C-alpha cells in the first residue's frame, strides 16, 4: 500500500518538524539520530529511555530535597540534581527541559524556594509532555517500518 506508506511518512515528517518548531527538540537530537546505525539500531530509543528514567530519579531527589517537612531545604543538593538534569537534557536535545533547568538553577543559587518549587512542577510537566510526544513519533516510525517503508530523514534548517 504505497499510498499508505507515503502518507505515514508525510505524517512523520510533519510531526517531527513540529516538535522542533515548538521547541521540544533541538539540534542535539538531530546529532543523536546521526549516531543510530546498523551497529546500534535502537540507540536513540535507549538513550531516551535512560533520560526519562534519569528524569524520574532526579525529580524525585529534588522533590525530597525541597520537602520542608524533613527540615531545612538543602539548596545545594537541589542544585546538584538540577545540574545533572541540565546535563542530561542537553545531551539528548530536550530543549525546553534544558531551558527550565537553567531557570531552576538560578532559583537554586538564589535560594528562592517558591521559584524552585514552581520550576520543579514545570519540569515535571515538561518532561512528561516530551515523553508523550516522543512516544507518538516512535509509534509513527514503527507503523512506517511495519508497512514496509523506510523512515525518512528529516532535515531541520
Amino acid at each position, binding site marked *: 500500500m504505497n499510498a499508505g506508506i507515503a502518507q505515514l511518512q508525510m505524517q512523520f515528517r510533519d510531526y517531527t518538524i513540529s516538535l522542533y518548531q515548538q521547541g521540544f527538540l533541538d539540534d542535539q537530537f538531530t*546529532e543523536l539520530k546521526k*549516531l543510530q546505525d546498523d551497529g546500534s539500531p535502537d540507540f536513540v530509543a535507549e538513550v531516551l529511555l535512560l533520560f526519562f528514567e534519569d528524569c524520574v530519579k532526579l525529580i524525585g531527589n529534588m522533590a525530597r530535597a525541597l520537602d520542608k517537612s524533613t527540615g531545612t531545604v538543602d539548596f545545594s543538593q537541589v542544585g546538584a540534581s538540577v545540574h*545533572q538534569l541540565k*546535563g542530561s537534557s542537553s545531551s539528548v536535545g530536550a530543549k525546553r527541559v534544558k531551558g527550565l533547568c537553567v531557570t531552576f538553577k538560578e532559583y537554586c543559587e538564589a535560594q528562592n524556594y517558591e521559584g524552585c518549587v514552581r520550576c520543579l512542577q514545570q519540569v515535571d510537566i515538561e518532561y512528561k509532555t516530551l515523553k508523550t510526544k516522543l512516544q507518538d513519533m516512535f509509534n509513527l516510525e514503527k507503523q512506517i517500518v511495519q508497512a514496509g517503508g523506510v523512515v525518512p530523514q528529516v532535515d531541520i534548517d
Partner: protein
Amino acid sequence: MEVCNCIEPQWPADELLMKYQYISDFFIAVAYFSIPLELIYFVKKSAVFPYRWVLVQFGAFIVLCGATHLINLWTFTTHSRTVALVMTTAKVLTAVVSCATALMLVHIIPDLLSVKTREMFLKNKAAELDREMGLIRTQEETGRHVRMLTHEIRSTLDRHTILKTTLVELGRTLALEECALWMPTRTGLELQLSYTLRHQHPVEYTVPIQLPVINQVFGTSRAVKISPNSPVARLRPVSGKYMLGEVVAVRVPLLHLSNFQINDWPELTTKRYALMVLMLPSDSARQWHVHELELVEVVADQVAVALSHAAILEESMRARDLLMEQNVALDLARREAETAIRARNDFLAVMNHEMRTPMHAIIALSSLLQETELTPEQRLMVETILKSSNLLATLMNDVLDLSRLEDGSLQLELGTFNLHTLFREVLNLIKPIAVVKKLPITLNLAPDLPEFVVGDEKRLTQIILNIVGNAVKFSKQGSIYVTALVTKSGTRAPDFFVVPTGSHFYLRVKVKDSGAGINPQDIPKLFTKFAQTQSLATRSSGGSGLGLAISKRFVNLMEGNIWIESDGLGKGCMAIFDVKLGISEQSNESKQSGIPKVPANPQHANFTGLKVLVMDENGVSRMVTKGLLVHLGCEVTTVSSSEECLQVVSHEHKVVFMDICLPGVENYQISLRIHEKFTKQRHQRPLLVALTGNTDKSTKDKCMSFGLDGVLLKPVSLDNMRDVLSDLLEHRVLYEAM
C-alpha cells in the same frame, strides 16, 4: 529188333540205389542253385567286394554244375536223345566254366591272401599308435604337474616355503614315499638333512659331502638313480620286510648373490649344490620312468631359480632395512646437531652478555679515568687499556655476529630511515681519524637517490663503516671518494642481474681510496674470515680480519653483492657493493616535527579500534558520548567516577574524555593523577580531553594548567568529534575547539 535212339544204361538199375542217387542229385542241384543266390544276396548287401567278376564266374560254375546234376536226374530212366544232348551241352559248359574259374582263381587267391596280410599289418600299427598315445598322454600329465609345481614354487619368495612346497608337490605328483632335501652346511664340507616330507622334525643328520654317490649326483644335471642303501637315502628305520623302492637323487644349484655380476652370467665354477632325494614307495613294483626323471630335473632347475629370487629379495629387504636404520641415525644426528647449535647460540648469547658487561665496565671506567688528572705515563697506560678493551669489545661483537650469520639465524631488522642522513653520520664518525691521517673524504650522493628507504639501518651502517674504515685504515696518503647511486644495469658479477622491482631499488656504494692497493690474486681471500693480506703495512693495523667477511654476509642477506677492484699494489683500490632496499612511501616528503601541518581531515577518518576512555558522572551524557565515539569506530570504555577512571586507565587507551561540569578543582585532580601514573612511561600516557559546558577562558586556562591536552565544548556534534580526534592524534594537542 528196333533200333532206338535212346541210351540204355549198361546194367539194370538197382531200384534203391537209383532212388538214393536220384534224391542226392536233387539236393545237390538245389544246393548248387541256392548257393549263388545266397552269394548274390550277401554281395548285394555289402557294398565292398572287389571281385564281382569272380563271383559271377563262380556262380555260373555252380549253376551249371547244378544244372548238370539236375539233368542227371532224367538219365536214370530211359531218356531220349534230346535229354542226352542237353546233358552233354550242360556238361561241356560246366567243364568250360570250371576250367576258366580254376584258371581265374590262380590269379585271385594270392590277392586275397595279400589283403589279409595288409589287414594284419594295419592292426599292428593301430596297436602301436595306441601305445604311443598313452605315452604322450602321460607326458602331458607330467608337464601339467611340472607347471603346477613350478607355479606353486614361484608363488612364494620365502626360501623355506619354496623348499617345503617342492617336496610336498613332488611327493604328491609322483606318489612318493619320501622326499628329502640335503643342504650344504656353512663350512661346505657336509650335507645336512634340512627338509623331509614325512618326518616333520628331522633329526640333525649330516653326511660328508665327499661321498662318491654324492659326487656322482653333483657331477651331472640329470636325475640319477642311486642305491636305496646309500647314506643319503637311509632316512627311515630299515625293517627287513620291505623291499625298498627305487631312489633317485638330483642336484639343486644354489645360486649366491655374488654370482650375479651386472654384466656377467653366473659363474658355474664355484657352485654350491643341495641334494634332493626321492624315494618310490617300497614294496610296489614301480620303477622310475623316463618322464618322471625328466620332471624331477625340471623341478630341480625351477627350485634353483626360485631360491635365487628369494635370495635377491632377502638382500634387497636387508638393504632397505639398513637404509631405514641409517635414516633414523641421520635424523638423530641432525637433531643432535641442531640442539648443539641451539646450545651454542644460547651459550654465545649468555657469554656475550656476561662478557660485554665487564667489558663495558672496563671501557666506561677507563674513559672516566681518562678525564681525571693523570701523569703522562698513567695517561699512556689508560689509553692503552682503553684501546685494548675497545678492540676486544669489537672482536666479541664481530664473533657473535659472524656466528649468528653463519648458521642463518640472523635476520634483518627492517625499518624506515633516512639514507642521506645515514651516509653523513657514517662520514662524521670516520672524519676524525681521516683528518688525523690527512685524508680528505668526499661524499657524492646521486640526485635520484631516494631519501627515505626501508632496510636494516644498523647493519647498513656497519657495512659502510667497515668499508670506509678499511679505506682509511689502509691508505697512507691521497683521498677517499664515497659515491652512492641507484643502479639498474648488470654488475660485474655475471650471474647477478639487478632488476629494480616496484617498490625496491638497488643501492650501489663505491668507495675509492688511493692506498696500498691489493694484489689481484689476493682479492678472493679478502672475504674469508680471519684472513688478512700479510703485507707489512697491514700487519700493524689491528682488526680481526672479520670485518669484510661480516660485511659480505650482511650484503648477501640484503640480496646484494660486494666486491673489490684493484689495479695492483700501490695503485689503490675500489670497494663496491650493491644492496636491495625498499622505497618508503613517505619518501621525499619533509617530515620535520616542528612545522605545523595543515590538518587535511579526510572525510572518513579511520579510528577503528582506537581505545578511548570516557569518564562522566551523568549517565545520559555518558551514553551519548559513548555512542558518538562508537559511531566513529572507537573502542570505548566508560567509567562514572574519577576513582574508577584511575583504576581503569592504562597505556592501551589513547584518549581519555572526562566530563568536567562542576566548578572547583576536584575534577582537575584526576588529570594530575593520571600524569602521575604515567611519569615513567611518558610516551604511553593517553591524551586527556575535558568535556565542559563552560566556554570562558578561565576554564581553558585551568585545563591547561592541570595538564589537560584539550578542552571540548559540550554537546559535541559528530563532525566536531571527528575533527577533534583527527587533530588530537596528529598533534597531540588541541586547544582550538572552543
